[in-house]
């Protein structure tokens, strides 16, 4: 075997750690492409029904909690910052900072999920859950029901992604505390960060599309 300058160990199928890093990174980008198409079908469905029933959608979005949604947007944007700082810490071999930023990220992720849970419980209290308990007082309740089912499916799948992200960050924080990462080997932090940013960006689209359309109308 050719001797490579990098001392970091690499998986047997790769020539060196550089090749492994590039493969990991490309793998995540391809996965995110899949995710874009996955959410894309939902955004398409939303677009079609909003185009078909604009008044019903605008009226139904009045029932969204703009304040809690806004706080959640800030929480997620903050978590994207802590993820970037975690990647930076990993690249510079700063173990303590890395673990700290990963834990911040986990806390912010859990905060988002908790606030989302509060919002969901409000919807149950207001009888706005399609298929379970739906008593809508506004105009065109049938069309508003489509709005609400899309709201639950889109934010629900988004929350599921975030939950998976929290799980990944927890594993990474545990491994980081055992000093598994350093300037030679930080691809897991970096590609998990990409995933986290993607989940964040999805929310950046979901928030105005679901919470703010009545402002525009």
């Amino acid at each position, binding site marked *: 075997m050719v001797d490579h300058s990098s001392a970091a160990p690499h*998986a*047997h*199928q*790769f*020539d060196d750690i550089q*090749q492994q890093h*590039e*493969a990991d990174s*490309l*793998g995540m980008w*391809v*996965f995110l*492409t*899949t*995710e874009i*198409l*996955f*959410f*894309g*079908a*939902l955004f*398409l*469905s939303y677009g*079609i*029904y909003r185009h*078909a*029933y604009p008044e019903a959608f605008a009226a139904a979005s009045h029932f969204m909690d703009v304040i809690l949604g806004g706080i959640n947007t800030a929480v997620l944007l903050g978590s994207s910052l802590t993820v970037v700082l975690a990647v930076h810490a990993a690249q510079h071999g700063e173990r303590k900072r890395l673990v700290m930023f990963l834990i911040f990220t986990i806390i912010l992720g859990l905060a988002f999920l908790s606030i989302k849970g509060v919002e969901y419980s409000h919807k149950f209290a207001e009888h706005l859950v*399609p*298929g*379970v308990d739906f008593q809508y007082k506004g105009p065109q309740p*049938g*069309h508003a*029901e*489509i709005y609400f*089912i*899309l709201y639950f*499916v889109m934010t629900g799948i988004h929350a599921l992604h975030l939950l998976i992200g929290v799980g990944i960050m927890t594993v990474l924080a545990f491994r980081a505390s055992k000093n598994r990462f350093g300037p030679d080997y930080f691809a897991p932090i970096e590609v998990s960060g990409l995933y986290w940013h993607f989940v964040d960006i999805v929310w950046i689209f979901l928030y105005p599309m679901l919470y703010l359309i009545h402002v525009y109308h």
Partner: protein
Amino acid sequence: MNTEQTVDYLNAGYGPKSWLLTTDHKRIAILYLISITFFFFVGGFFALIMRLELLTPQADVVSAHTYNELFSMHGITMIFFFLVPSIPAVLGNFLVPLMIGARDLAFPRLNLLSWYLYIFGGIFTLVAMLTGGIDTGWTFYTPFSSAYSTTNVIPVVTGIFILGFSSILTGLNFIVTIHKMRAPGLTWFRLPLFIWAQYATSVIIVLATPVLAITLALLGVERIFRVGIFDPALGGDPLLFQHLFWFYSHPAVYIMVLPSMGVVSELVTCFSRKRIFGYYFMAGAIMAIAALGFLVWGHHMFVSGQSVYAGMVFSALSYFVAVPSAVKVFNWTATLYKGNISFHTPLLYAFGFIGLFTIGGLTGLFLAALAVDVHVTDTYFVVAHFHYIMVGGAVMGYLGGIHYWWPKITGRMYNEGWAKFSALILFVGFNLTFFPQFILGYLGMPRRYHVYPPEFQVLNVLSTAGATILGVGYLIPFTYLIWSLRKGKQAGPNPWNATGLEWKTPSPPPPHNFDKVPIVTEGAYAYPPILTTEGTHGGS
């Protein structure tokens, strides 16, 4: 040379654990081969009962409801559990690292996870279908599937949802491997066309499958919560379901047939001892088919009530797909021209593919024509057309590939006489099964009914007779291939004298594939020039 038995991937470890926890791409390919063969025979069994029922005009074997379940189970099993994974998961898994000179795929554990998702999704779906039935067809059209069907719709789509992740992970693995792990000197335009085909297929899988996943999830939500996403009675749009479904399922046709085109390119060059005619156009045509395949889904919806203008655009775009497809057929033919042809079994399958794919493709043009399509929509013409592509194309290519690389995979040769005989049987059986269906469809026999007017009986009897021959034809290779594992001749590293890195390593290959990373200095298919006798017109 040491005299002890050399270590290859098959004898590197024994016992179930060494197989079920393996991360070796070659062993995972074998796991897929066994499980895919199982699903193929299950799906074939459903088809045989249907053909038995259609032997006579009246109902005598099964009821209308059972018949609905049979064609649904046949379609679901064959498409999702055989055709979509077939060549990529078996031959692709085995050959992609070997052909590009890599030690394994980029993500070996992910590869094993793909197989577990496949087998779990497959068994889950099969149990769901056999216990509660499924009568929606493989297309799950709403609102029938979401509001009216009383069968196991939710469990079946859950199984397919799981299976989708298996496909996506395999596609992702191939894309990264082909991008990042080619041997030194192996540039993109030195890649075998099989690799180009796997690459294009993987791109389609990665882009299209998630759309199917979310569509089936929405269907599940509508069915469980009785809300109107696709149900027009509740304000939903059933055409949206069809658009989303075919956005996956038309490209899925190319997921099934492009890998076969890759296989056929390998077979034609090897057995005519020639470079492929027009390599760049062949690689480009593969990518063009993959790209155009995403723009034509609406031709499944000409009579569903979509806009007439959309129909016209989809019709025109569908014609465009014929161009790269025809480039491929012409170039295979041109490769054979003045070649030094030897009629081994794999080449017979390649010939089968080229002929049957051409018929399937040309009848596809009939269906892409708006006016003709109205006449033959939902008739046996459509059934015959896509079986010429799926069975005549995809399965012929798959079997050709299995025969070609069997010596590499197992280290043994199969019985050439039996193999040629069964290739012939399959060709005859296939045409006898499906050619009459073109005529039946043109005469107006609708698909998906268990009874039919008596005047259609003669052609149906022919079709059922063909299906019986076809069924026997599939059992023969199954038998002699297993037989060859013990009794076959030792193959040696390169029994066909083929080019390509996979033939430069022992058969079966060692666990790490290559003792030394190969360095590539020439393009694919670098066969020596064929010497022609002076004064004659080519040939040798």
